């Protein structure tokens, strides 16, 4: 049996809003939301805690948010969120190398080797992020990733404050089961609204219900997922913190638009930009991919993915874009409204890309790509654009304003 670990989960509180407060301190304590304006059918990307009191939530149409909270101030995306996120990661890296970032505003930290109580370590990290970066955060701690993440959410819910929750909740070893028992099934990681409904329809409302039902009964009802349910409900999760995140398996970038897009030109421009981001991540990691996946969310939230696998691996932007565009054009009807677009690369391999006889013999494509990367490093992405992007200049964000493609806070 392995020694028990101490894992912290960190969540930056209303991250986009917190960054906007740094930019404009007068927003502090105000009900406001980051996102598109109601005139543009915008949606809430992130909202302040003062706004949450009125029932405003992320992903809600801005019009509805304004009806709930008439005094709501709407702040448009200023971007630059990615650079704040990076600063947090740099700060955490100084604490321990065992940091696994899971999204722009969330990560796991394995602090087993730090000789201090988990609560102290968590408070110390929280204070440094607040003092040095002026960003509020909440942390959960436990012996597993699963329970740590749930602890963060429970801690936030329990925080009796109108402002930033700044919560820290540690579940001591051995108390996982008891901690989870009273929580509703939807508190569990991996149980979405649909699955929650299915479980509730069978009378399974709390994690205690799942704990009591036992492995066999759950497998009989839900197949192998049932086994996972039981383990997770009991707080059993063997996954360790993997520094570098899931980079070893896939690389993806996606963007949720503040307003749905429906013009081919703009959508293609976004696909191109996402393909370039994926391509750059591949090249930075010395990887090639064989599979390209696109993710599309329509205005009615229905989400589809489409993928294609190449015979040979690639790390070139235009190969990724060509594949992504073909997938997109096959899946999209002209005029159809798109809420989210994503491009992903998988079947990764570190080097060893098989070259083809039909490639230009002098390896021209790779030399052009390397030259472009160098230019982008020196002058920023705004100086080196493909012809297609130039047509969409009004739309494509400048390099330092890269937030439009990042995930919602």
């Amino acid at each position, binding site marked *: 049996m392995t020694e028990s670990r101490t894992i912290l989960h960190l969540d930056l509180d209303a991250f986009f809003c917190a960054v906007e407060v740094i930019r404009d301190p007068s927003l502090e304590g105000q009900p406001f939301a980051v996102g598109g304006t109601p005139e543009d059918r915008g949606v809430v990307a992130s909202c302040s805690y003062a706004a949450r009191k009125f029932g405003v939530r992320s992903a809600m149409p801005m019009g509805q948010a304004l009806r709930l909270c008439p005094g709501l101030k709407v702040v448009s995306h200023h971007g630059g969120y990615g650079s704040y996120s990076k600063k947090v990661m740099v700060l955490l890296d100084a604490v321990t190398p065992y940091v696994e970032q899971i999204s722009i505003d969330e990560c796991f930290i394995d602090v087993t080797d730090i000789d201090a109580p988990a609560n102290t370590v968590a408070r110390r990290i929280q204070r440094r992020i607040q003092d040095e970066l002026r960003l509020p955060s909440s942390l959960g701690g436990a012996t597993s990733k699963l329970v740590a993440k749930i602890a963060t959410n429970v801690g936030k819910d329990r925080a009796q404050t109108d402002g930033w929750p700044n919560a820290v909740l540690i579940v001591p070893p051995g108390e996982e089961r008891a901690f989870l028992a009273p929580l509703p099934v939807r508190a569990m990681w991996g149980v979405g609204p649909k699955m929650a409904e299915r479980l509730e329809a069978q009378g399974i409302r709390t994690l205690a219900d799942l704990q009591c039902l036992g492995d066999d009964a759950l497998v009989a009802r839900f197949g192998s997922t049932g086994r996972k349910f039981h383990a997770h409900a009991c707080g059993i999760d063997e996954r360790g913190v993997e520094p570098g995140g899931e980079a070893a398996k896939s690389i993806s970038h996606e963007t949720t638009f503040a307003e749905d897009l429906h013009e081919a030109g703009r959508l293609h421009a976004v696909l191109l930009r996402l393909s370039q981001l994926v391509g750059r991540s591949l090249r930075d990691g010395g990887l090639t991919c064989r599979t390209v996946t696109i993710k599309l969310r329509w205005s009615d939230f229905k989400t589809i993915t489409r993928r294609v696998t190449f*015979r040979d691996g690639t790390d070139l932007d235009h190969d990724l874009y060509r594949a992504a565009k073909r997938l997109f054009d096959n899946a999209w009807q002209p005029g159809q409204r798109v809420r989210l677009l994503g491009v992903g690369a998988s079947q990764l391999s570190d*080097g*060893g*890309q*098989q*070259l*083809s*006889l039909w490639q230009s013999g002098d*390896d021209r494509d790779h030399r052009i790509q390397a030259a472009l990367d160098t230019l982008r490093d020196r002058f920023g992405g705004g100086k080196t654009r493909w012809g297609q992007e130039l047509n969409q200049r009004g739309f494509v964000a400048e390099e330092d304003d890269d937030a439009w493609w990042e995930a919602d806070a």
Partner: protein
Amino acid sequence: MKAVIEREELVRGIQAVLDIVPSKSTLPVLSNILVHASPDGIELSATDLDISIVCGVSGKVEEPGSTTVPARKFSEIVRELPDETITVVAEENKVTIERQAGLEGTYVLMSVPAEDFPELPVEIDGPEMNFGGGDEDGGLSGDLLGDMISKTVFAVSRDETRPVLNGVLWQVREGRTTMVATDGHRLVKFSKTLQGPEGKQVVTEAIVPPRALNHVLKLVSGGSRLQKVAFGQNHLMFELIDSEDFDGDGGEDIRLFTRLIEGPYVDYEQVIPTGNSKRMYITNSALAPAVRRVSILASSQTHQVRIELGQNQVELSANSQEIGGEAKESLDARYEEDAMAIGYNAGYLLDILRRIESDEVVFELDCAVTAGIIRPVDQAEGEDYLCLLMPLRLSE
């Protein structure tokens, strides 16, 4: 229909056609063998609609007629019988296999009428290539054709998005015949000069599906002698004689028809580099086993083996992060150019090395990201075997 056939002879006929019977087909009758008995003789046929084969079987026709029998069961039954005389009788919806004219046992199989069997090509109208005398008169023998097939067919592409690469290009020119296959990662070309009698040569070309070539190769290595190839517009016909029965008055013949792949083939000459000036000579019997060993620890995705060329020395290495291991071997070689490192898919490299008979091979290289040429140093008179292999891009 009633025919009396020696069991051994029937087994030979079934074996010649059985491989062509598709294991799964939308047309159920294709899983049957067509048995046709006429005063001219007995023939067994099979087809998958792309390839058809007709094999003559010697025997006594007591009652002419045709029927079709389920191929696999027919084959299993006949194979299990001892060597004796078998009588095959077809009546309405059944075929009876009688041991010693029904004295010792009978096997009855449901049959499908011969009329339901697709019509097979009979003759090919087009240039013909005759293989009578083989090497003795400077022509092409069936054995050499088999050699050409086995040295090229492995490189045929399986990628169905470029159908023209799914076959071997077979060119017959004045004084020379060539086979080429490529899948975009490697390209092999084998040509042989022909010095057949004036006027007897054909000038033609065809893109031949590998399945047909492999079957011809199997028949030739099984002892059948290639007599003739006829190049039609859409079909190619191979005519062979089973030499075991060849006793002077003509053995039973086998005719294999294959549909051709529509061209044109890629302009392969264009991708064969002409400026590869770095030459590395190495012993095949040392290199091939070393590549095999080192590749045990290569990445299971790329099968990358790194070849580091230094002064008269070659170092092979591989490593795999998934397995967590690495391998290295040094070999003597003749190389006097600048040091360089190049990566190859070990499987592709071995595919080539295993088909080179010469113990010394030469790698003609230019740089780490362009095609390398691998050739045997010693080749038979008039033969030219060239293998092109694209490298793997080495990770930094």
